[in-house]
């Protein structure tokens, strides 16, 4: 099997004497390289960082000062980037990709976009505001207002980036990812880093933010297998799926897990097992649905409601979560309600809803698709531009929420700390507690040996202590009712209790270990036979696309959703100005009317009436409790007393 030649940072192929490791890494990366399906209307696709960097200029800015250009456009290369002196600790270094457009260029761009409407235009679905309630819309309104005051990328930046990127594609159309292979904790981790020149989620798709440069990533986790450990026919799930043939150096690697990065999520919910039906694959290539604008990676095509939490509202959001959980699970308000159980919990009041459109109806890149990958760029930690340059990869917009600021590189966070996905890719996806299949079998065997040894020790110890206990018990009974031995008796009594507890604890440990041993033996037999737990057992809350019926809202409902908050503010001002004495009543009437209208659009009149009535009943109950507290206490005590009296008399009668 021929292995592709890897590329160095300056695009020169590594010669034949390059390490076998690099060649193997590239081969692994290519074997499992993903297929990306984009959404129609997406303008930016994975590009090579070298080409981006050559179009950018390098700047730094200190707090309260103007930005200073370090290297002009055309002077920045990956090599020079790796040599930048990052010695100014208070300065923020950033690359700048876009320049302000001339008005004529902007107009020409907009006209050209309109002409290409049929092929390239994104068609939004149900508005994001129509999918959530008033509180979320209000928080969204606040968020939009803050955009006027905090830093943001210039309004024409997206257009400028699109034009520059289009020129780059015209010069040389290529789609490239940046690959990295990490070996950690028995896993071979294939990292696929995708670099986009611009993230136009806000301006293009009603999302949360725009920023220059965007790094996204997915990972494939491989395990080296020894068929003798797991069994030749032991892995019916992965059998034959690694595309291996006899003599193939990649044959010993089996894909076990994938993890797609999406916004700032980490942990168990991110990863999927290779045999999970949710993971689409074409041969050995996992399929990724890329969200429009934000470029988040998803397993299934669809529209994902993503909630952005503002740090200011964090505590309120947590309280809202607790209350929702209490209402839904403890009070069981929607138990048995098929519609409500299918809808799931409502979005949190204090989080701003945005939609990630990962429809997969646009361009596709990957093996066997309309566009294919160029030879990947291999990432190594010792490369200067990766490790030395800790600045931002795009414009620094001075946004305190950081949403509009460009990201740092694959190795660093914006605050210059190292990304967990870089230094601990296994732990990032929650795999640090999962051994590879071969290691699992070996660990199981070792654990059973340890347990059996411990059982043997326990049995000996129990035998000794039980004998001592019987001895002590006999002696203690002999000393009973002997006044002259009272002190000794008390001492022996205490020892007896202590030893009895000790023996009971040992017996309990023996019994528990025996049960554990039995379980481990069964589990080992299953593991050796290649049988595994359900692929989704580790997932607590999967991020699933919004179901069609959840956001089937008419045009009127969407208009109402967009206008409701503004209208609410106008009514409040009118009440204060024209009817100050009736403000409270007016507010209550307005909120009731708005709630009724909203519930009508969503077909949730019954839920609204029920929730409101139950809420009022709770308030009324609290009032009664406050007003008649001691009477209620007295009545409760009398009731309990009467009940006890009745039960005891009944028992006596029987």
């Amino acid at each position: 099997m021929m292995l592709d030649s890897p590329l160095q940072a300056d695009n020169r192929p590594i010669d034949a004497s390059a390490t076998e490791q690099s060649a193997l890494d590239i081969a692994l990366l290519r074997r499992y390289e993903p297929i990306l399906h984009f959404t129609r209307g997406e303008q930016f696709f994975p590009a090579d960082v070298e080409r981006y960097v050559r179009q950018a200029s390098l700047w730094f800015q200190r707090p309260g000062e103007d930005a200073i250009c370090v290297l002009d456009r055309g002077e920045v290369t990956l090599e020079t980037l790796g040599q930048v002196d990052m010695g100014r600790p208070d300065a923020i270094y950033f690359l700048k990709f876009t320049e302000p457009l001339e008005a004529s260029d902007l107009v020409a761009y907009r006209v050209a976009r309109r002409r290409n409407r049929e092929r390239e235009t994104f068609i939004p679905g149900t508005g994001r505001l129509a999918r959530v309630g008033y509180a979320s819309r209000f928080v969204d309104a606040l968020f939009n207002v803050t955009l006027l005051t905090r830093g943001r990328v210039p309004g024409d930046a997206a257009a400028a980036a699109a034009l520059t990127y289009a020129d780059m594609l015209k010069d040389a159309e290529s789609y490239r990812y940046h690959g990295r292979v990490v070996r950690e904790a028995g896993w071979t981790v294939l990292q696929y880093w995708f670099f986009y020149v611009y993230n136009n989620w806000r301006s293009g798709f009603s999302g949360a933010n725009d920023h220059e440069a965007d790094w996204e990533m997915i990972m494939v986790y491989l395990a080296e297998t020894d068929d003798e450990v797991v069994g030749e026919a032991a892995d019916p799930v992965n059998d034959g799926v690694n595309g291996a043939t006899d003599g193939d150096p990649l044959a010993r690697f089996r894909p076990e897990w994938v993890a797609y990065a999406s916004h700032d999520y980490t942990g168990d919910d991110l990863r999927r097992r290779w045999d999970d039906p949710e993971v689409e694959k074409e041969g050995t290539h996992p399929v990724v649905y890329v969200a429009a604008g934000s470029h988040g990676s998803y397993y299934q095509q669809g529209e994902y409601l993503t909630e952005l939490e503002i740090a200011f509202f964090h505590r309120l959001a947590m309280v809202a979560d607790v209350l929702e959980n209490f209402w839904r699970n403890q009070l069981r308000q929607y138990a048995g309600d098929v519609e409500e159980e299918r809808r799931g919990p409502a979005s949190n009041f204090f989080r701003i809803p945005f939609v990630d459109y990962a429809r997969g109806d646009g361009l596709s890149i990957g093996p066997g698709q309309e566009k294919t990958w160029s030879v990947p760029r291999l990432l190594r930690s010792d490369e200067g531009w990766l490790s030395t340059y800790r600045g931002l990869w795009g414009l620094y917009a001075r946004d305190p929420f950081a949403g509009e600021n460009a990201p740092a590189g694959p190795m660093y966070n914006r605050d210059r700390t190292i990304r967990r996905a870089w230094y601990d890719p296994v732990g990032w996806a929650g795999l640090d507690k999962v051994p590879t299949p071969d290691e699992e079998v070996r660990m199981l065997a070792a654990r059973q040996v340890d347990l059996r040894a411990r059982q043997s020790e326990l049995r000996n110890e129990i035998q000794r202590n039980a004998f001592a206990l019987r001895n002590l018990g006999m002696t203690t009974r002999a000393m009973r009712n002997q006044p002259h031995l009272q002190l000794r008796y008390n001492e022996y009594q205490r020892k007896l209790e202590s030893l009895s507890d000790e023996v009971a604890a040992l017996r309990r440990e023996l019994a528990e270990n025996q049960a554990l041993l039995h379980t481990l033996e069964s589990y080992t037999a299953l593991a050796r036979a290649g049988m595994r737990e359900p692929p989704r057992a580790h997932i607590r809350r999967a991020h699933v696309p919004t179901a069609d019926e959840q956001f089937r809202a008419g045009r009127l409902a969407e208009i109402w959703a967009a206008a409701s908050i503004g209208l609410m503010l106008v009514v409040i001002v009118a009440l204060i100005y024209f009817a100050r004495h009736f403000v409270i009543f007016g507010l209550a009437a307005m909120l009731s009317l708005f709630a009724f209208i909203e519930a009508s659009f969503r077909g949730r009149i019954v839920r609204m009436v029920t929730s409101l009535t139950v809420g009022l009943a709770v308030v009324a109950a609290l009032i009664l409790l406050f007003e008649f507290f001691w009477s209620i206490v007295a009545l409760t005590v009398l009731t309990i007393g009467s009940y006890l009296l009745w039960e005891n008399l009944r028992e006596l009668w029987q």
Partner: protein
Amino acid sequence: MTKSNGPWLRSRQPVVRGLNAERLAELAERHADAEAYSVDRRVRRWVARVIAALLAVQAGSLLAMTMVRLAQFDWEREVADVMLSAAALDAVLLALMLLPLAFFDLLTALGMWFERAWAWLWAMIIQGLLLIFCLSSYAINRRSWDIYFLMFICIVLVLYLNANDVRLAFTGRQSTYRRIRD
């Protein structure tokens, strides 16, 4: 055959002669379903009648409150004056608010007695309106024993109506019906 529920199904098995095993199995299944249905229906009927009784008591309370308030005034003198006194006007407004609610309460009680699906939602709406009335009265310091009593009945009814089995018995039936129809 008689059409009574439960005990009939338990104590008197239908006589079947000359039927094959398949037909017997079919009958057994139908009777099992009928038995489950009849038990479920009996529970639902009992619950509905308790709620209906409470609604009737509530309607009676509303009527009594209104009558007591109105009886406090000498209406001949009030009418003789050009305008009603503030207290009398207040009592009239109260009557205008509570009497329709009492009427709907009675209607809902009847609907609940005959296990109509709409009765559950109507009962909830009425409790909501009455609770708003009670809480508003409490907020403006109109705190009398009748308001507290009304609050108490509303709370008991809401608890009952919101119980899982009661809610499912009325709203769940609609979902089932919709699914079958679809």
